[in-house]
């Protein structure tokens, strides 16, 4: 059964169910009046371990980019030892093309807070940090107001969850980032909360064992946590009825997903659809087709790190298997940026390479140096000053950086690697047309 009603966007008017012009921030009172915090009430009447089990059964996969099973991540926590345990909510959302979490924070912050409260109760986490990127000035204010409302209503605070319904007490604090993409990487985020530069940590130890201030920590994306409330309230069978099974015999992609479409489409925006929806349907039905009736040329799969879907991959199903079937790294945040036939793909590659050059944290040499060189090479190709040797070198450098080749600590360089390589591979003639001819020695010395 596909998504027949809005789930995460229940209170946020979204096509085809509502008119985005009518969106407004849902206050605590509005939230409660429309059945809010009922899931938390239900959760508090259940054993914490049962909630974890339920989320595990729902096969909810992380919505932040990696698609890691959320319930499984929760089970990595060691048993409580009386010390502090943390939840770090990842609202860094700095991946170019991605703007789905902003929608939830802007208009339905209490849905996120309810998910946070349930996650803290289920995993016995006593303190939550809501890490929001520095550029989200307005959203930080909206969310802080929602936190204040929730404290005033007794959801959080020393008196125990939900006005003392449970004697387990949770505190939540908003923590603003300050303009660093790398803080969206889970351990970079932890460093930023500790007041340090956002340099990712070497894993293991994983955050679930040794995270914030050396204590067990769960890091979850905003959308993932927002989905926890509906799952608890309406059950696992309902959740797994949406989305799709795996096409390659792997883990399924269940549930609805927020997909934010940008670029050359007639009606860009965030849509809530089934996982597995073909990109073509997403663009043609939800976004009303391509802008100015032009033809599709390609699309970033879900945030620039994931690489590009070529002109012949318009029908790609948007599920977690996409990385194994369509030569991209993965689904990422499921927020595609769509390009029409007039787009210069060399410029796209150069733009993305510049992004990674600017955002490399500088900790690992292959990423710090490689990103700079990739950008320079792509600029040279764009200006028409490069030879075929430069193009080969760009591919070689790109392919050597990241966790997958085993040369860096975090996945930032893998994003650069995949973005640049897939664009060059899928649009090679366009790159070659920009190259200068190279004169090769044929072995006859001029002055013999």
């Amino acid at each position: 059964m596909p998504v027949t009603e809005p789930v995460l966007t229940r209170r946020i008017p979204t096509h085809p169910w509502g008119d985005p012009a009518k969106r407004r921030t849902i206050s605590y009172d509005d939230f409660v009046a429309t059945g809010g915090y009922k899931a938390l009430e239900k959760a508090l009447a259940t054993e914490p371990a049962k909630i974890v089990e339920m989320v595990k059964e729902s096969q909810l996969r992380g919505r932040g980019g990696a698609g890691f099973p959320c319930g499984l991540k929760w089970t990595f926590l060691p048993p409580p030892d009386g010390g502090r345990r943390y939840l770090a909510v990842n609202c860094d959302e700095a991946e170019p093309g991605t703007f789905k979490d902003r929608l939830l924070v802007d208009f339905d912050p209490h849905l996120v807070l309810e998910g946070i409260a349930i996650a803290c109760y289920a995993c016995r986490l006593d303190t939550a940090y809501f890490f929001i990127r520095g550029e989200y000035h307005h959203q930080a204010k909206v969310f802080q107001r929602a936190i204040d409302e929730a404290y005033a209503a007794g959801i959080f605070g020393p008196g125990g969850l939900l006005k003392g319904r449970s004697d387990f007490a949770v505190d939540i604090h908003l923590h603003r980032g300050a303009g660093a993409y790398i803080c969206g990487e889970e351990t970079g985020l932890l460093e930023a909360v500790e007041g340090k530069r956002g340099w990712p940590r070497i894993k293991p130890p994983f955050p679930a064992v040794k995270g914030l201030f050396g204590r067990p920590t769960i890091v979850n994306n905003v959308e993932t946590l927002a989905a926890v409330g509906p799952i608890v309230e309406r059950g696992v069978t309902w959740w797994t009825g949406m989305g799709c099974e795996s096409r390659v015999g792997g883990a399924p992609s269940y549930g609805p997903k927020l997909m934010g479409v940008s670029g050359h489409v007639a009606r860009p925006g965030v849509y809530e659809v089934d996982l597995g929806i073909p990109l073509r349907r997403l663009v043609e039905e939800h976004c009303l087709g391509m802008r100015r009736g032009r033809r599709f040329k390609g699309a970033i799969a879900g945030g620039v790190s994931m690489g590009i879907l070529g002109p012949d991959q318009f029908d790609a199903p948007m599920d977690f298997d996409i990385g194994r079937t369509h030569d991209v790294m993965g689904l990422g945040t499921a927020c595609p940026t769509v390009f029409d036939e007039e787009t210069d793909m060399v410029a796209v590659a150069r733009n993305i390479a510049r992004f990674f050059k600017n955002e490399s944290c500088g900790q690992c040499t292959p990423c710090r140096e490689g990103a700079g060189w990739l950008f320079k090479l792509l600029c040279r190709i764009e200006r028409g000053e490069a030879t075929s040797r430069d193009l080969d070198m760009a591919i070689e450098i790109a392919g050597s950086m990241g966790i997958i080749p085993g040369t860096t600590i975090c996945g930032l360089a893998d994003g650069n690697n995949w973005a640049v390589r897939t664009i060059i591979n899928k649009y090679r003639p366009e790159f070659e047309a920009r190259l200068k001819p190279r004169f090769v020695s044929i072995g006859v010395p001029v002055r013999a």
Partner: protein
Amino acid sequence: MAWIAKPSGTAKIERRDEPYLTASMRERFERELLPRYETRQGALLPILHEIQHAWGHIPHQAMLEIAAFLGLRPADVLDTVTFYEEFTTRPRGECVIGVCQSIACEVCGHQELLDRIRQKLGIEPGETTDDGKFTLITMECLGSCDTAPVALVNETLHEGLTAERLEQIVDEAARSERAPHGPC
């Protein structure tokens, strides 16, 4: 991000008698911020945000004061400050125009916005006008790709921009008087 060589050994720190971190700020941080974190360093980012917001930049003297307040080495504070783009150690214009240059904005026409501001104010990205009124910067994805191109003017996001609209926003900013810097 953090790769600007700084002559730290020979740099002179400008000092003034009045502290940046006032007694009332210290008291408020101690009461509101520090209990939120396990270590005192945890409060560093929120404190830096306040200083950046109040003064438009983070003066070196303020860093020394923060280091003393949190029990850190001044180098630790400098380390964090220079890592994050939002924190600047030098003053910028009263009005900072940040044009998004990431992929969705580039394919939807961010270049026109940049060119218009360049022409109008006679500055390149990274520069400040001589009267200290405007600074133009380019920024990476501002998370509003559905309404590209966008720009962040001080702390307000302007969406679905045209060159004309951005020019209008800049004109409005030029007319308005901003309150002088100071602790909030």
